């Protein structure tokens, strides 16, 4: 039984390559080609209501080679990583990981829609890259300031509460091996670029 899509290398239709591309870029073995369109994922998804497409539709689009549409869909960004679809999927498709892959590809292709999610991830990653640890206070405030300035007042009490309860650090903790970490990530980026 195949674990990677079998698309004839002779096939010149670029659309058939998309499924393969997504599958190869995914951690673990995606088994994306095994989807039988049963809808278990779409049925299980807690945030399906806010998605442009249900995961199932997204997989159909990937098969159809609808690159643009698939990568600009907000669906991956709405994924809350609850893994309900993953454990329920009758075909063992690594759905959550495919969603991560699509996010990455969407950013690369600059195709994601207005969603603030990519930016949030980006902000988060920058912090981790600079400090080695995450740092909600900076993260949350920065993110809210940038995207929900109007919401901030409402959130303020919460933020203050967190502060007063010593549940938020004002300044980030930097790890000692930050240089080492950055070297590793640097290298990782290079590897990622070629693979």
């Amino acid at each position, binding site marked *: 039984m195949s674990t990677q899509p079998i698309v004839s290398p002779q096939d010149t239709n670029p659309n058939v390559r998309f499924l393969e591309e997504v599958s190869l870029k*995914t*951690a*673990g073995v995606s088994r994306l080609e095994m989807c039988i369109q049963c809808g278990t994922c779409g049925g299980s998804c*807690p*945030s399906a*209501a*806010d998605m442009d497409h249900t995961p199932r539709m997204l997989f159909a689009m990937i098969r159809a080679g609808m690159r643009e549409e698939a990568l600009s869909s907000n669906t991956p*960004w*709405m994924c*809350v990583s*609850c893994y*309900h679809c*993953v*454990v329920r999927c009758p075909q063992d498709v690594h759905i959550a*990981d495919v969603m*991560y*892959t699509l*996010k*990455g590809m969407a950013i690369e292709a600059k195709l994601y829609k207005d*969603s*603030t*999610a*990519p930016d*949030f*991830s980006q902000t*988060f*990653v920058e912090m*981790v890259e600079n400090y*080695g*640890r*995450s*740092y*909600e206070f900076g*993260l*949350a405030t920065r*993110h809210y300031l940038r995207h929900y300035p109007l*919401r901030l007042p409402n*959130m303020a*009490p*919460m933020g203050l*509460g*967190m502060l007063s*309860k*010593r*549940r*938020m*650090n004002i300044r980030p903790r930097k*790890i000692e*091996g930050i240089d080492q*970490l950055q*070297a*590793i*990530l*640097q*290298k*990782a*980026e290079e*590897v*990622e670029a070629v*693979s």
Partner: protein
Amino acid sequence: MKEYLYYPGCSMESNAKAYQESLTSISKPLELVLSEIADWNCCGATEYVGISLTPAYALIGRNLALAEQQSNGTKTVVAPCSACYLNLAKADYYMRERPLLEKNVNTALSAGNLHYNPGSLEIRHLLDVLMNDIGLEEIERHVVRPLSGLRVAPYLGCMVPRPDYEHRWSDPEHPIELDQLLKVLGAEVIDFPLKTHCCGGHMTQISPNTAFELIRRLISSADQYHADLMVTLCPMCQMNLDAYQTETNRHFGTNYHMPILFFTQLIGLAFGMDPKDLGVGLELTDASAALNKIGVEVPKEEPKPRRKPRKKQTGLPMPKMPGDEEAE
């Protein structure tokens, strides 16, 4: 005495202080020795993997590599945070499943003179360790203040029972471990239907309305069951349900009041420890009314009517379920 490598994760130092403090407190009587992985870094939560694969796994890989170096005697890494637990476990698993990933990650790690051999560590969640290594009997031995009369909703969230690559849990959707533990502590455990449903995750940041809906589902369901409080084992879940509860109420015009505590805090309370040593009071949604029931700090509040048992005794028999015997 049981010794483990310990990966706290970022939240334990900040928003989940209560978790860390209570864990530290109960470790002593349970003779649980947690040696922290030196200079560990963030696991990347659910964000990094969404940006770029190899870096994301290299980030996790560094922790695994450090842990492997540090592992003397034990090869078990304990993580209290769901996301951390899953990320570590997943990296270890996928590096085994996809040789390419293993190659890439180790190439990256080599830049920091590190290397990780997938499979050389055993990644486990704190609850798993308490249940299976320490054991319920041992825990029960230390209970001096049973949580009798306290109606608790056991809430595990997503990433501990799922996807469960190593099949450590009784079930990915309705695991019974947390229920068993809380029963041993003397609490009245409700059959919480949403015990492994989503708390909203990072949606509180990127799509608050989505998150508020998910938070509402959980809190209102627990409320329908007249739970006094929800018990969680994940910093993110605690944060979302506790800190964003007010905002959720405002969003829906509801006025739920559902305290969210960590299971380690309840263990500590049952062990008769001082609430202050367990980070009790750090929650934003005041828990004193609930805790009052077990004689921990006491303002008044009228008790809610009890809900009648779910399984009807009359009529056609129900199919037998494993573990029906000990259940009431």
